[in-house]
């Protein structure tokens, strides 16, 4: 498929968000600023509740930010649209629809034969050919999550947001899914923003790893990962980067030796 996504830069400009919880204001996002190239793979790591999910929902248009803006391909985003897809920790497939019907959710006003062609193409992409008429409860966690990916990808989004997509899967399936997502990313060239608290996963996947602090959620650091893919999780450079990122989450904060560990 031919897509021109070269100009589809995503700019997150000074985004702030405050929630009111029990009459006290909680600053969730504080001056979040980042520019993401088209086709880039970004991973955001941080503690649970550091506002990562809120940031994704703002990018998706499900939430509005208090100030700042999200600009995709030169246009400020207002509300959800087909340009940005999102995948959650739980697959959120509708249990009453078959896999095919679920994946077809966002496909409207398309001639039937073309629609079927798109559906089988994307079901094949996520290795779910043959499961068209199955119901979500008949699928394993990994398969359901892949179906959920297909559901987002059929709309051919410019940006795909993944909110801890493998968090509910066991460790072995996780590794498998990481391969899957890379394969899909390389094929579709979609900009990916994946939120995780698994540093290993972030380093394995991302072009850049964004480290976020919690309360308020702010960008602490951005690590460029220029290791060639597929990455060796046991290589020295991988482990060095890992140590450097881990340092942000140790009780002491950000010890000095991690500076030397950065390449």
């Amino acid at each position, binding site marked *: 498929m031919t897509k021109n996504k070269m100009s589809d830069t995503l700019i997150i400009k000074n985004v702030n968000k405050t929630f009111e919880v029990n009459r006290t204001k909680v600053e969730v996002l504080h001056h979040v600023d980042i520019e993401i190239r088209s086709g880039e793979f970004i991973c955001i790591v941080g503690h649970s509740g550091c506002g990562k999910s809120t940031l994704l929902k703002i990018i*998706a248009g*499900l939430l509005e930010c208090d100030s700042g803006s999200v600009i995709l391909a030169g246009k400020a985003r207002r509300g*959800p*649209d*087909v340009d940005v*897809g*999102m995948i*959650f920790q*739980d697959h*959120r497939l*509708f*249990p*009453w*629809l078959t896999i095919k019907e679920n994946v077809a*959710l*966002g496909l*409207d006003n398309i001639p039937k034969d073309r629609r079927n062609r798109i559906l089988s193409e994307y079901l094949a992409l996520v290795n779910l050919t043959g499961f068209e008429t199955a*119901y*979500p*409860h*008949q699928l394993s966690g990994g398969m359901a999550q892949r179906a959920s990916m297909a559901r987002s990808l059929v*709309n051919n989004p410019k940006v795909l947001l993944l909110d801890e997509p493998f968090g509910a899967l066991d460790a072995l399936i996780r590794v498998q899914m990481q391969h899957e997502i890379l394969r899909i990313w390389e094929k579709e060239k979609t900009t990916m923003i994946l939120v995780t608290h698994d540093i290993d996963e972030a380093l394995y996947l991302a072009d850049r790893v964004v480290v976020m602090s919690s309360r308020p959620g702010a960008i602490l650091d951005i690590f460029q990962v220029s290791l060639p893919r597929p990455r060796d999780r046991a290589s020295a450079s991988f482990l060095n980067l890992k140590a450097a990122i881990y340092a942000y989450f140790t009780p002491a904060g950000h010890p000095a030796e991690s500076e030397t560990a950065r390449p």
Partner: protein
Amino acid sequence: MNGSKKVAKKNIAVYGIYAFADSHYYLSIPQMSELLKKTARFTNYVFLPTLIFIAWWFVTEHEYFPPVIMPSMKAVAASFLKQLESGQLSRDILVSLIRVAKGFSIAAALGISLGLLMGVSKTINRFFALPLNSIRQIPIIAWIPLVILWCGIGELSKVVIIVLGAFFPVLVNTVFGITQVPKDYIEVGRLFRISRWKMFTKIYLPSAIPAIFEGLKLGLSNSWMIVVAAEIIAASSGIGYRINDARSLMQSEVVIVGILIIGLIGLVLDQAFVWGAKLLTPWARTK
């Protein structure tokens, strides 16, 4: 001689052991415990009913109460067969069931449509909430005199009373079903910018179906109870009329046949609904 006898005895003993051991081959210990479990479960189910029947038999056998008040099982069975043969029983049941069918289908149609509207629109919900919630508190039996005044004692009054009784559980459960749709699903709908109509047909409605079924089930069992009550108060046909008529004639066995049949039909209607609901919501079936 002596020796061969001993051998024979020993053989029997050995054979006995083998026979015992053999049974283990046919029925392993887990299988046996499974069988035991099933038996225990079955016993669990039928224990109390059996006890009740034994008590009934005991009380009537010794005639602790006059047979006119407490008929024997035999008398009840004879009355059942007689009513079955004369066709009276099936006529009574049919009349009552037709009333339920009319009243329940009207109540279901009204309850589901208004419930859906109240579920999706807060304005419609607020508009109806106060009167409907107050009316809901009134026992259905209390409506019967007014309905008779307004609609007479013909078929219409029975149907109206059933509608009143079945409408509210359907309505309340439908509204509940629509309003408890998981926010996660709605978020997905928003994310894909699906139309309001599709949001309703693909998310709200299917998500509410189990609750709607629950309401329909309650409504149906209400209808069955109410038709009997209404027939006891004012009717010249139906199973409720039959037991009240038999009471005035001191035919306690006819009353008991009627009561048992009412219970049985209620049970069958309820189970039929459970099966129907399972059939219509294949996704709700567990793995």
